[in-house]
């Protein structure tokens, strides 16, 4: 049955300049197929690679959208008119880009990423975006390990890694990017080799340095997204501020014992880390993982969430962890979520920012070496070798270990009394004030706190801190005492 198809003005050049084409068909779909088989150049403007009508192309049969009838199967009859009408859609995306700039995928890459490619949310376009993207990872520790491995596997085209550490035995319980064969190697080298092994199609750039206020802006400039895998407050504030100042998303994660947090701090679109925590906690209040421990699988879970959000940012997905703080507790196995709000008074991303360039973050977080312990308390210290000498001389001393019982199980200095930090004041009467007391922990931080607490509680005996804790004892005096 002859029907008429009206060709919109911009597409007439692909239909031999005609504004109307007559075809004989039984359904709307058949009419369009006939039209585009005669005028094949027209097809790509109406149909996508999957042979479906492009989502902005609407087909009207007389005055009705065929989507509201039976779609392509809508029957047509003699004298009907089909109109092709675009709904005009568009708009800015995260990284405004002209189509041509996306790199092509090789056959090997298409095979490798096939599980991505068959999902419309990723597709060829998304995979090419991943290839065009660059991500800078701060740290290759517990969080950096899964982040790096998943981003590499996903085909993120350029991954930068910043670290200055070497692989140690105690890292391997959770930092699965490194292996036993890597002990003693630089972490960036070990991580680079692992990522290359996972995906040889991507570029890996190593930066062996501590991230500082001097190099952060320069480093961040060359990447689209920054992933924070740090374990300390000065670097976390530094990463946040440098991201705000360079307008880059900061994919945040942190872990402690059994609990993890994740969010996307992107000042352009929502809250930053300082909107959530304007000031760092007092030094020593929040123990590090080295002091408090961490379940090895926890950074795997939190890091995988960071990798997930990073990939979503690259793909232009909605529903990112922006203005959302995700809390995870591995022990009861619970996720919770808090809403975050951008703080108009935020010192770095607020309306009248007071921080307009990077500052001294060690000082800001109160962890400059001269401030630990506080200058006003006269903390008496002793080295492991001196302590050993005093013991060998037969001096009358007592040694108090303020670590936790499970640490005592791992390693101990012989002849010590265990009083965990949390009980040191209530069990003060167990310490003889007439004898010199050496206090120790793992590294010397908790014992210094114990001494302060005891002094404040009125203990009037002589208290001496063991510098470097049981670790120094193991290194300098008795290597049979295990390091952990």
């Amino acid at each position, binding site marked *: 049955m002859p029907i008429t198809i009206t060709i*919109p*003005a*911009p*597409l007439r*050049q*692909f239909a031999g300049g005609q504004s109307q084409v007559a075809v004989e068909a039984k359904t709307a779909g058949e009419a369009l197929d006939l039209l585009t088989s005669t005028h094949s*150049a027209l097809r*790509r*403007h109406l149909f996508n690679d999957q042979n479906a009508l*492009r*989502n*902005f192309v*609407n087909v*009207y049969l007389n005055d009705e*959208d065929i989507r509201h009838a039976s779609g392509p199967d809508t029957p047509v009859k003699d004298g009907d008119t089909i109109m092709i*009408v*675009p*709904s*005009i*859609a*568009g*708009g*800015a*995306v995260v990284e*405004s*880009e*002209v*189509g*041509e700039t*996306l790199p092509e995928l090789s056959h090997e890459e298409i095979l490798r990423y096939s599980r991505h490619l068959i999902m419309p949310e990723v597709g060829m*376009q998304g995979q090419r*975006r991943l290839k065009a993207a660059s991500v800078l990872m701060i740290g290759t520790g517990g969080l950096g390990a899964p982040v790096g491995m998943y981003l590499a596997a996903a085909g993120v085209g350029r991954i930068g890694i910043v670290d200055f550490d070497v692989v140690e035995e105690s890292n391997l319980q959770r930092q699965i990017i490194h292996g036993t064969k890597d002990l003693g190697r630089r972490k960036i080298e070990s991580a680079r080799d692992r990522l290359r092994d996972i995906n040889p199609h991507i570029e890996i750039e190593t930066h062996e340095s501590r991230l500082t206020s001097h190099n952060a802006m320069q480093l961040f400039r060359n990447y689209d997204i920054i992933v924070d895998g740090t374990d300390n407050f000065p670097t976390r504030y530094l990463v946040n501020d440098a991201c705000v100042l360079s307008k880059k998303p900061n994919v945040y994660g942190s872990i402690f014992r059994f609990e993890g947090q994740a969010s996307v701090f992107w000042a*352009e679109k929502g809250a930053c880390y300082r909107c959530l925590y304007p000031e760092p906690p007092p030094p020593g209040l929040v123990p590090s993982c080295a002091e408090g421990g961490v379940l090895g699988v926890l950074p795997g879970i939190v890091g995988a969430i960071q990798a997930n959000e990073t990939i979503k940012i690259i793909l*232009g997905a909605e529903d990112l962890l922006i203005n959302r703080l995700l809390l995870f507790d591995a022990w009861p196995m619970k996720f919770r979520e808090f809403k975050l709000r951008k703080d108009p008074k935020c010192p770095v991303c607020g309306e009248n920012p007071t921080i307009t360039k990077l500052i001294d973050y060690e000082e800001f977080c109160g962890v400059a070496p001269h401030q630990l312990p506080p200058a006003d308390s006269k903390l008496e210290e002793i080295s492991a070798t001196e302590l050993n000498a005093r013991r060998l001389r037969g001096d009358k001393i007592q040694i108090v270990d303020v670590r936790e019982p499970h640490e005592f199980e791992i390693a101990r200095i012989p002849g010590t009394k265990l009083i965990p930090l949390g009980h040191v004041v209530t069990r003060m009467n167990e310490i003889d004030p007439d004898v010199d007391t050496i206090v120790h922990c793992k590294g010397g931080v908790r014992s210094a706190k114990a001494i302060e607490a005891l002094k404040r509680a009125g203990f009037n005996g002589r208290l001496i801190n063991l510098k470097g804790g049981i670790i120094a004892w193991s290194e300098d005096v008795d290597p049979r005492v295990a390091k952990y």
Partner: protein
Amino acid sequence: MITIGKKQLTEIREHGIRDYPYECCGLLLGRYTAEQKIVNETYPISNAREESAKRNRFLIAPGELLRGERYAREHDLEVVGFYHSHPDSPAVPSQYDLEHAWPTYSYIIVSTSANEARDLFSWEQEPDRSRFNPEEIQCP
């Protein structure tokens, strides 16, 4: 090439500022000649996107376009292109823009902020859909 008057360019810029922080959109009505497009009128359209996506997506529903086309026909004009704004983003088409465009039409994009319209460029899709090419704007 597209020829458009100062008055129409000002209308586009003002529409962009008015709708900030959302994207504005509208039709460009005029005539096709052998070498170029001439814009006689702008035809502002309300952004049909749901509130949450208005900031970075715009949509001219087909019904609105049909109304615009009917208006154009009555005035012996044709739809020669579209304009929209990119709040706080460059006046460069996004991948999303590319996927939702046809060749020949002019796509004018204006970069906007709270109180000013910045760059304004016109773009034309390559006939094979692979990219946008910058289009010369002539303002007599």
